[in-house]
């Protein structure tokens, strides 16, 4: 156990020394890894922020009820009574004259409404149901649509559903991208370690001759891969921090224009640690693959 710890310490110091003696190539590898990892993690952060935007928008969906032009007064009253029931949070009536006036007030459409000889708009109710689940909304809308005198109902939650669907695609994209870049990370690490193994061929051969196990030989390279991955992760977080700083002002400006207090969310400590852990892990895997392969090649050359 003590000698195991000693071996770990020895391998870690050796790995740190090797990184320290080649600062430029260490830096370049870390940068390559950092840029690669910053893409999926940046996309992830972007989605987290978008989800927050979606959460801040009025979540309360509305149902618009358009009434038939030939509706009777009794039917109107029946609809009004139905809208006082407990599953309706709020309902207000929009008479067709008011709807036309609102339309005329909006600049772009005043030309069109001015040319109209009669009002083509129906009377309408705008209703906010209590329940916001998709099933509940559909049920209320369906029920209201069947009332006599109702020409059409329009459930105004489609945009929210579409946004959620887009976010879901984005999340799937994050994982896909993360998977691809994990492979890239393994390849970058493996390549860097392969160069290290070749540069240390003599050391490996001599160590073998004087009784080194494969594990002993492999260990410093594994630490090297993990450290290199860790530096890559740090570089990625640096890239994201710079990008975040660069985007902060324009995002705040845009939020201001919408009258929102929205600001960019930073990654949480857990997310940062996960990124570092994963990059170190993938660096380790790349190193293992590379050094195991290289050891097998060195094998035949005694």
């Amino acid at each position, binding site marked *: 156990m003590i*000698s*195991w710890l*000693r*071996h770990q310490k*020895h391998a870690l110091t050796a790995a740190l020394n090797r990184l320290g003696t080649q600062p430029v190539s260490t830096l370049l590898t870390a940068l390559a890894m950092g840029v690669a990892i910053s893409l999926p993690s940046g996309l992830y952060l972007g989605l987290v922020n978008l989800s927050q935007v979606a959460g801040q928008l009025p979540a309360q969906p509305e149902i618009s009820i358009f009434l038939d032009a030939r509706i009777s007064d009794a039917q109107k009253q029946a609809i009004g009574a139905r809208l006082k029931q407990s599953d309706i949070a709020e309902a207000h009536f929009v008479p067709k004259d008011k709807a036309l006036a609102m339309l005329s007030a909006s600049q772009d459409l005043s030309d069109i409404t001015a040319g109209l000889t009669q009002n083509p708009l129906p009377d309408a109710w705008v209703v906010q149901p209590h329940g916001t689940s998709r099933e509940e909304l559909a049920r209320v809308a369906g029920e209201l649509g069947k009332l006599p005198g109702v020409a059409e109902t329009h459930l105004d939650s489609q945009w929210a559903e579409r946004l959620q669907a887009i976010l879901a695609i984005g999340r799937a994209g994050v994982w896909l991208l993360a998977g691809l870049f994990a492979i890239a990370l393994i390849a970058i690490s493996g390549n860097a370690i392969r160069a290290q193994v070749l540069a240390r061929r*003599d*050391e490996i*051969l*001599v*160590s*073998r*001759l*004087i*009784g*080194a*196990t494969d594990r*002993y030989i492999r260990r410093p390279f594994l630490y090297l891969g993990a450290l290199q991955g860790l530096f890559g992760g740090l570089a990625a977080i640096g890239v994201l921090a710079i990008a975040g700083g660069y985007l902060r002002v324009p995002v705040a400006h845009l939020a201001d224009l919408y009258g929102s207090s929205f600001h960019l969310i930073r990654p949480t400590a857990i997310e940062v640690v996960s990124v570092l852990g994963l990059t170190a892990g993938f660096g380790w895997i790349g190193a293992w693959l590379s050094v195991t392969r290289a050891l097998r090649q060195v094998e035949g050359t*005694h």
Partner: protein
Amino acid sequence: MISFSQVTKRFPGGHEALSGVSFSVEQGELVFLTGHSGAGKSTLLKLIAAIERPTSGVVSVSGQNVGRLSRLAVPYLRRNIGLVFQDHKLLFDRSVIENVVLPLDIAGIDRRESLKRARAVIDKVGLLPREKANPVSLSGGEQQRVCIARALVSRPALLLADEPTGNLDAGYAADIMSMFRDFHQVGTTLLIATHDERAISALGGRTLHLNQGKIVEAAA
């Protein structure tokens, strides 16, 4: 300690380096292995350290069948054997003491204890003033002494030397050989491949003569 029984080593391509070699070396013995180059001396030493495997026959070291040793067991066999190479096989990216301490690092021995032992053995080969030097700055004879220090630092019971004085002039060669005699006197088993006739007559001991892969034993 070492026993060969009908050992044949044939390399891919058909060259037979050793054919039906049988001999044994007792613990504490000093044995010279002679023969012109290509007679199979290096191959014989490599078979003992499991660097090569016999094509047929049994090579046994301290009762272990070396030819059948699993890949995982080979490092532990080598830790009990000191190897001295004609070309030294030193690492030029580190100092003399770091070269010598390597086998102890590999064995997982406490660093401070390792350095103490390394320093003691470097002293024994007379290079203590140069312990911090890079081996590349040493002469051939000094490099060979570093190689010997590295072979001895883990106190192996068996020392194998392949042409240890092959590249050295007579003065250095005599130094090295007298060092071997000292180790022999403290009980180390030595098997030295050489064609340095003067050294053999100076040290005494048994001689195994190899000729075209066959052994011709001659008492010295």
